């Protein structure tokens, strides 16, 4: 049974369609990469699925719960991690986790915190306020908050922004570990090598519409004219910026 189900998703801002006619599913253990140029509708899609934006049309179900009809249960099953970490100025690292634990009703929050802090390399910073953390550490804390309640659906918007090489490697491992544990993961990124490496399927968006959907091999196979060119070349061709590849 799919964890994330999107059917006919549309979001209009006035007359401008940010996203239109989007339908897809993400099952347990899958990692779906959302790629596209700036303004393609990636963030709108992820934020609609996270329940932040109300779609103009379409239905979204998370773990079988309709997001519009039963938003509390649907949101309890997901975690959204934005590209810019939004942290509370006066809560320490550990208090952020306790705060999130209460929101999601995590009874064994005390037992979970040490492991998460260790995984995110934040143990030494457990008593620090966000103002004392670097950009990368803040991002790790936001990720730790998202993982605390072991969500069935994990939504990450540009998850590697601000991380150092070690952080990037750890982050990739974390995402893959969660997927292996049965979570449905959906991430948006501009980093094509990242999506190629960890995503099981790709959804390529252009001006709010799907221009390609499937595994990397499937997408490349649909364009035999491009031969054995890289994902980057295929991506640029799909979004109509092929001349860029020639530069």
């Amino acid at each position, binding site marked *: 049974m799919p964890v994330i189900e999107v059917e006919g998703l549309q979001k209009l801002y006035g007359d401008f369609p940010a996203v239109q006619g989007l339908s897809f599913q993400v099952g347990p253990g899958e990692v779906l990469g959302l790629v596209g140029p700036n303004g393609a509708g990636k963030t709108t899609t992820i934020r609609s699925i996270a329940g932040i934006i109300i779609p103009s049309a379409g239905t979204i179900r998370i773990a079988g719960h309709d997001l519009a009809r039963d938003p509390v249960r649907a949101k309890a099953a997901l975690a959204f991690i934005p590209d810019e970490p939004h942290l509370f100025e006066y809560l320490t690292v550990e208090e952020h986790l306790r705060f999130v634990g*209460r*929101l*999601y009703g995590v009874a064994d929050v005390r037992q979970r915190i040490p492991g998460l802090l260790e995984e995110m390399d934040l143990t030494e910073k457990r008593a620090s306020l966000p103002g004392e953390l670097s950009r990368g550490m803040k991002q790790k804390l936001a990720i730790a908050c998202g993982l605390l309640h072991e969500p069935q659906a994990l939504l990450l918007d540009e998850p590697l922004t601000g991380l150092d090489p070690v952080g990037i490697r750890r982050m990739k491992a974390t995402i893959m570990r969660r997927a292996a544990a049965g979570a449905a993961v959906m991430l948006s990124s501009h980093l094509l090598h990242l999506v190629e490496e960890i995503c099981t399927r790709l959804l390529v968006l252009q001006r709010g519409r799907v221009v390609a959907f499937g595994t990397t091999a499937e997408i490349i196979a649909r364009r035999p004219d491009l031969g054995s060119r890289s994902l980057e070349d295929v991506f640029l061709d799909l979004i109509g910026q092929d001349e860029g590849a020639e530069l």
Partner: protein
Amino acid sequence: MIRMFGYLAWRSAYNRTARQARHLRSPRYVAALLLGLAYLWFVVLAQRPAPAADLADPRWLELVGALALLGAVAWGWIFGVERRVLAFSPAEVTFLFSGPVSRRGLIQFKLLRTQLLILFNALLWTLILSRERFGVSPWLRVISIWMLLTTLSFHRLGASFVRTSLAEHGRLGVRHRVVSLVVLGVVLVALTWSIGEALPRFAGADARTPIGFLSALGEAAAQPLPTALTYPFRVMIRPLTAHSVSDWLQALWPALILLVLHYIWVVRSDTAFEEAAAALSLQHAQALSERPAGRQVRWAGRRVSAPLIRLAPEGWPAGAILWKNLVAVTRTQRLRNVGLALAVGGVVVTALSFEPEGTLAEIAGWFAVTWAGAMTVIGPQWVRNDLRGDLLKLDMLRSYPLRGGSVVIAEVGASALVLTAIQLSLLVIGYLAFLGNQSMEPSLQDRTLLLVAAFAFLPGINLLGMIIQNGAALLYPAWVRLGSGRPAGVEALGQNMLMMLVFVALLGVTLLPPVAIGGGVFLLLHGIVSRWAAIPATTLVLGIMAFEAALLVNWLGGVFERTDPAAAGIG
């Protein structure tokens, strides 16, 4: 260079206003604008001038105004003016600090930018005061208010330089700012001595009536030292109270000279500025990257205190938001200072109240009770650990598994609790201050009943007040300042005053049904059960307030769930 600064300040202000005006496509914003304009018309412009008999005596206006200014300026020097006064935006730091711009040029930019706000507020004040008949004409009044606000703003900036220089550089800072510090020291000593000399004048029974108090104040202020101390402040006020154009022109020159002297003082502070503003603005920029319109984070190297309340892992989920907001309060320097001042004040006042004269305790008592009352209208703008701070993180709030109503009640509950705690502490201090006074009216028994009534009603009144303030932020996020900071200082006094008047009107409308129904029941039953009628009346008032609060929270919860962060301009 000035043209470049002017361009930046003007275009930024223009584009900001145009962006806010674009929201007028929404009927909700149009309705708010029309209501606001109608309110201004009926309350301010359509009113006839106050009859001549009601005119306040310009001498009293000048004296009270000068003392108020003196108090505000002294407070700023002793307890610190807002360091934000020095801060530049991250973009200004990036472009101006690294660009070929002198420090003096940056100060001039800072002054120029503040001018737009001051001009706007001078116009607002002229509107607000248009009913009063002191002063000459509206145009001259705008100029008078502009000069007053500008001088005070320059003073605030100069004081910031001195204080920051001292804080950052200790002994070296003292050497740099020796003239300012000597002047400040002399003024503070003279002020303390003058207050000590004046106190006996207020001890007499005559000083307990408003007229007697003003007379005692006038006598005290007429002594040579207080006259010298209040002179600069009288000079600032005089153009406002002048009766004719010739009086106004006569009063204008000293005020203008004072303004120019302040300008020179501030512009010559470029060394202090170099030391203070750059570092502070960079800190500010760092804080802004943490939270777009927030206050500075000054925690580096400081141990974080443990939260006063423990958060259980299970329970009402929105309780986490309430807890988070209360923890933030205990860690905010300003509110911690308030808590400390209340605790110390309480102990001192209690000790003094049993002295034979008890005058000092009673002055402190009146001060505490007056502040507790004023906090009902000022407090909801001042305590902002609620949706007004958290709406900037609307993305995160919306992704939590909570109903909109739960988020709203948790957010407003936190700030209502804090405000109520401050007010009740002030009232307890006031109660203790008069404990030793057996001859006072109302009697001790009545005072006790009033205190109990405050404990019963204030939480509900504050909850409704906070719902109104948060409702405004939720309904009009593009027009309401979000973040824990708000426009502060003399520059923004006019707009804060206007907001407060609108708030008072709305709070009055909200409190009308419970007060009318509860009061009616009390009057009806009083003849039958005497003072016991207060019990059903109080229950009814509290019940109606709770019902109103539930209705409003439910409605605002729906608004929260429907608010699109991007469309509202906060995503």
